């Protein structure tokens, strides 16, 4: 949901914008994967 809201507002988010939007705690530590996934999605939206 946070990712959808972010990408609707900002189709090409910067690292800082992703950091500001994706604030959920993750006990398994997937933070870098979440970051990469948002970038990947944003890239796809372009195509």
């Amino acid at each position, binding site marked *: 949901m946070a990712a959808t809201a972010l990408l609707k507002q900002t189709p090409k988010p910067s690292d800082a914008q992703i950091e500001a939007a994706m604030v959920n*705690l*993750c*006990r398994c530590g997937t933070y870098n994967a979440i970051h990469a996934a948002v970038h990947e999605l944003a890239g796809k939206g372009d195509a």
Partner: protein
Amino acid sequence: MNVRIDPSQEASALALHEPINVSRRRFLAGTAVGALVLGFGLPLGTTRVQAAVAAATAERGTQVPAFLEIRPDNRVRLLCPFMEGGQGTFTAMAQIVGEELDADPSTFLVEAAPPGEAYVVMENGMRITGGSMSVRMSYPVMRRLGALARAMLLQAGAQKLGVPVGELSTEPGKVVHAKSGRSVAYGELAEHAMDLPVPDPASVQLRDPSQFRWIGKPVKRVDAYDKSTGKALYSIDLKVDDMLHAAVQHAPRLGMTVGNLRNEEQVKAMKGVHSVHRLPGAVAVVAERWWHAKRAVEAIQVDWQEPTADSKVRSMPADFSSDAWLKRLAEDKGPARDDENEGDVAAVLASAKTRIDATYHNQYLNHGQLEPPSALARFNPDGSLEVWLPNQAPDMFRADIAKRTGLDPSRITLHSPLLGGFFGRHFLYDAASPYPQAIELSKAVGRPVKLIWSREEEFLRDVLRPVAAVNFRAALDNDGWPLAIEAISATEGPTKALAGKQGEKLDPTALEGLSGKSYAIPNKRIAQIYAKGPAMLGYWRSVGNSLNDFFYESFLDELADKGGKDPFELRLHLLRDNPRLTTLLQAVGELSGGWKRGPFTAADGSKRARGVAMASPFGTQTAVIAEVSIENGQVKVHDIWQAIDPGSIVNPAIVEAQVNGAVALGLSQTLVEEAVWIDGKPRARNYDLYPILPPARMARVHVRVVESGEKMGGIGEPPLPAVAPAVANAVATLTGQRVRSLPMSRHTFT
């Protein structure tokens, strides 16, 4: 967004809702008898385990029909001896079995196997999901299992096609007769194949590793689709017909008992309440809906009674404070027992010109796994019992349920759903799991009951990662190299904590990470002062290594500083006769762009430094470099470079994910995380007061896997221990401040 249609969904949902059909496969008749009952933490080498190991070695993992079902549509259902909790073991097992069976891992449906001797596949004679053991302890056996199944399919194919078996080969999912150009899908042969006798294990040949298609490749996770689409079911999600819900309120301190309930009548009249129950150390409300049960149970005003002397659980005193306990450990001068003792430490220390002494300690931690514990219990009309519960050791849990209920184990069906994270939380810990309560409530109300512990109840009863205070003494030679090191740890290991007493032998999980170091220091002594505390302890990801490598690797940097040595060079020097670790250390240096200690100024103008540390946990070797700066008085970790040598690997993508996850948990305990107890109670009952690493404090993670070809090691836990000391060493270089306790949020940096 397109919805992917996955034909497996319907079938797998059905499989999860339906308990495993006991009558369908003969194997279960075999597995129900003589279940191997293992006390976890039983030191290997005791007679019972030795006997079990000997008996099982030849036959382990050879009851093919117990593990595999190949359906008419060619999908392969694997009953896996290990639990999936996000660490990727279901995928790894599909890769390993699929490789030898000659079936694509993507065609696998993997579920946790029931308890039973058939599934005791680990080379140490156990079946647990922990200690980073699943893959490394079962790899040859699970490969052989796949190869045996393939041999049975070939045999069935020979009969079906009327050709000699020697003329047949396989391609993924089918038996092929090249001569005639005919082939038969596994799904067509399976029913007949599974009725054939299992061939002699010695008769099957395993695939040459150079020919692997799936082992060693970043195969997609078999559980990703169900989890991403919300279809995966955890214990907390399960429903059975006629089920009631339950919630509990635990005694504020373990050992206290239920006295008068001041408002029982009012609570009984609350919305949705079915009944109110007194349990050992807890009260419960059963209701048609969990929310009603929770609201009602939290409203009960209980006169809790102080623990009695004959309390069966470890009673928590009203004056227990974690800070005071840590202080007491640091001052403990009790008798110490040696684990390692080489050279003459006492004499070298007494005569040394350069001495370094330091005291370190760590903090208690909660598991904090995403899914709070739950359990669903149902007594069937024939008096048999079914229980669904998160667990890392099904045979132990079934044995415990048998003991509690008086039922024969054959009358107990234990289901092991997916785990919503675990980190060691779901071993058998007394008074720390809801299933005894769920069983008692189900019996009392005569209907199935699902009990979920709220997050608050979980934080109250979770077992803690152990603490230690270590007094180090060391001596340097005239050239500044370490000559002697002594570490005396005042601690209670988690394994001994479960036993509740000190055993004949030292608890290896207490000292691992202080013991087992590979550095060539001629005089060393590693010893433990057994310090039994009032807190319930458990296994936490990387167990003893999670604290001990922080102590040792930080202190080693203190020796480097005192001797005027660069810490990277010092380690290379101490590992000069160890090619494997030398290679690994050089690999992490290279990965980070060449060892650069600092302090230096980064492109953004911040002042930074790097630290290095190593660890040897769970059969794997690791080396970590961390880069840090100070922001607003707190440590900011920018990058973690980790080189990891587990011998050989099965799935590089999962390895990388595990390193990322372990680094996150490692940073969490380094920077912010601690379970603080005051007046016999935990300060935090939820994440509002229990800090875990937030996304803004995660570091970039760079991984290099070094496959030395040495004996296979673990993956889930090993990437954690070297993180804390690498960060602490970087901080010391940057600030001159040596951090001797965690978390760093307790310190202020300038």
